[in-house]
């Protein structure tokens, strides 16, 4: 079965910073650092590629054996799904431009942190707008 990945952007925040990607799961309160290679797989998944397509793209990018590439991709994808950073789907999501910056190969690694969980689980944000903090909805 050709599996795609869907990221709920209301719950999962991510940003590529230098070569790594930092991912925050607001529903579990954990945050992650994807190293450059893991980051590449994350980006391919975010771009709407299926698992087979990610495997092919990844194999070609780093000139790896199919077996090694599949094992690397599995490692990253499994964490993404098991930690609810992404959901699997049969429907192809909207695609975006594939990443072109590819760093040198290193073994993909994801570091998980839960030391800010207490804070992240409670929506900590008081949004500030021109209207002040807080403002009343005049329509009411």
């Amino acid at each position: 079965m050709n599996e795609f990945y869907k990221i709920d952007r209301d719950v999962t925040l991510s940003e590529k910073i230098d070569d790594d990607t930092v991912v925050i799961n607001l529903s579990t309160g954990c945050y992650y650092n994807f190293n450059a290679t893991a980051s590449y797989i994350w980006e391919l998944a975010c771009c709407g590629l299926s698992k087979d397509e990610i495997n092919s793209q990844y194999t070609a990018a780093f000139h790896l054996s199919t077996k090694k590439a599949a094992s690397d991709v599995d490692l990253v994808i499994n964490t993404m799904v098991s930690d609810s950073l992404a959901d699997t789907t049969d429907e192809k999501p909207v695609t975006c431009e594939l990443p072109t910056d590819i760093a040198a190969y290193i073994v993909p690694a994801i570091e998980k942190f839960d030391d800010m969980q207490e804070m992240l689980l409670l929506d900590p944000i008081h949004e500030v707008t021109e209207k002040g903090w807080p403002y009343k909805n005049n329509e009411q």
Partner: protein
Amino acid sequence: MNSNIITFSDKLRKSFTDIKLPQIVKNIKIGKLNIRFIFFNHVMAELMTRPFQHLTSDSCDDDICFTIFAADGKSTGISPGFELIVKDGTYSTQNQNLYFNHGNLHMLHNTLTTISSLVDTGSHEAFYYITSLDELPDYEKAAPFRMIFHWICIQYNMNLIHGSVIGENESGFLVAGRGGAGKSTISLLSFINGGKLLGDDYVIIDNETCPTAFSLYNSIKVNPDIVNIYPFLDNYLANRTSKGYDKGYLFADEIPGLSMSVSLKINGIIMLTGEKTSTPRFNKIPGLKALSVIGSSTVFQMPGINKNFLGGITKLVGKLDIHEFIIGPSINENVRLLTDFINTTPLISVILPVFNGSERLTAAVDSVLSQTYENFELIIIDDGSTDGTESIVGNMTDIRVKYIHQTNKGPGPARNNGILNSSGRYIAFLDHDDVWFADKLERQLSFVKHHPEFPVVYCNHNLIFKGPLEDYPWIQKIEGEVRYPHEIPSGMFLDNIVFDRVGLFNPRYRTAEDSDLHLRIKDAGINITVVDDVLFNKHIHGGNISQNIQSNRHNVTALLAESIKRKMFAAKLKVSVIIPVYNPDEHLISCIKSVLSQTLQPYEIIVADDGSKNNVRESLAEIDDPRIKIYRQNNKGISGARNFGISKSSGNILAFIDCDDIWVEQKLELQVERLVMDSSIQAVFGYIRQFYSPEVNMDYRNKYCFEDKPAKGIIPGTLLIKKDDFMKVGQFNENLRLGELFDWIHRFKKLGFNYAVIPDIVMYRRLHYNNNGILNKKDRIDFVKTFAQIIKDKKNEKV
């Protein structure tokens, strides 16, 4: 007269059978009673079965099944001929009720509301009529069919009683008192604070065997004052849109995490007299007083009740102890005392740390397991033993024994580990080389239950020396008499709440850690006493840690120095409260009032105006307090405003609150005590509860849901820190529009600082149109960048 009553009853019954509309059937079960409701109008069916939702049943096929027909005249066209009974019934001018009890027929007709209830206990049928649903009063929506249930209950040796039932585990107490005595308030508070609630205002008591209470309605009356204390309750008011109500009501099952109990055994009656005193207390009182109050208040609520009712109440009161509860001024203290009172199965956690003490461990454990008071858990903390302790404990079959292994850290951290894993309301410690007497827990528990003003209790002990006394030069002897302190862990018995106030054992002290804790408890002004009985044997042998004289002396000196420092700091305590504002509205007034009503008063309130377009000073004109200082700067964002406020502060403790939130009145007192007493922490947070600001509409409420229960609030509004320590960490990062506290906490932890989160709710966080998450893309990037920096720092630390 009788013929008129029978004619009226027949006519009413016939008018219901003539209704041609489809029937809507709903079934409920209350103990042995099965009730079938038959309605002819969907709105009425939904409205009037809402309070019974927790009793819903699939069918009504059992032997005892009563059918209640309910209809309104407007939608069904029926119109009973009340004129038939006007001259034959008994008229009560008080509520303008007309009622009669004749053979199997019982009837009450309220001439104001037009509600009529007729019960035929012979045919097991009842009829409920109202002219129009528009006339249905709020109290009828919260507790419908009261009179009908009264007559049904009488038939089955049950009583519908005006009162609440609250409890713990499987048993409870009937809370009685005249209207306005505070039954609903105290019951609701007990419920919110973890107790069980079976019913508020009306409950059914089955007198057949041991008295058992059954729930009837899942509605709770809410006094408007309660909403001021617990603003989140406003979210659940079922009649929140009604104007001019003096009491609201809500449905228990709408408050997340709370569900009403269906039945509880009744252990006693708690009477509320409405009397108040400075120190709340319980007094045992004679049954006659309860009989009169329950009887008269129930009759008042349900005029026309059957004379058999009083027989049932007399029987109930005769079987139970009656306790008068005279409440005090502090709601928290009242609830705590009540919780203690109704908790019939207190649990004690016994914490036994052991490090290579297998030789003596079995005797210590046996002395715990053979206690006359049996409802405890024994937590053995193996502090990294290498002498087979684990297998010795592994062979223990008593299910009360729990085993936790940790790497060797010393007795203080081992006991802390036990406390953190404990579930008991009370904590007792036992060193592995000491032995308790069999009644040790019973005696100390009994003492604290009767003297809750002493949450810490020690006891006396025998000293048992291995070998001659001369082998122990560190033992103090005055005029030949051995002196050894009472205040040692094996004799200590305390309320778990003490640790929330002063913190755990300080891990810095490997010896004298018990003296440090004792001193902190004393410095906090917590009452300590000694039960004047010898309740354990203290064994002095070659392996006692306390014989390490050098370390002991050093630590005792250090902890005394800390105590002096604490007292000096407490004497010159000045709390500066920083409130950043930007175009604030009237929520700021509520916010500042909550700060000014603190039990520990702030030294100053710094309103840091971040370039508001409105006049902040003018908007605060109604509050005249010289401690409020308003400073203005050009707009820099919330972190910049907080930093600006800090720069203007002159206190030695900083606390923060956002201008839309509300503090609980004991917030500062609880947090300052913990900060001052617990030298292992540098900052204190607390729990929060969120609530929808009254102005937000249903669309918002549906879109932005939250789990409505106390949540750990690691947010600026709960932060309390010494100013010196804050300055060591540094200011909030003004470049971050979001995530500034994550960045700050990260820097705080980098210094080796720790924070505590006290378990009390310290703040109510207002949810309104403007704080619903990360909306702006740029802010989201900033937020993630904060974490990238944290990760980078972590990596650098590793290197």
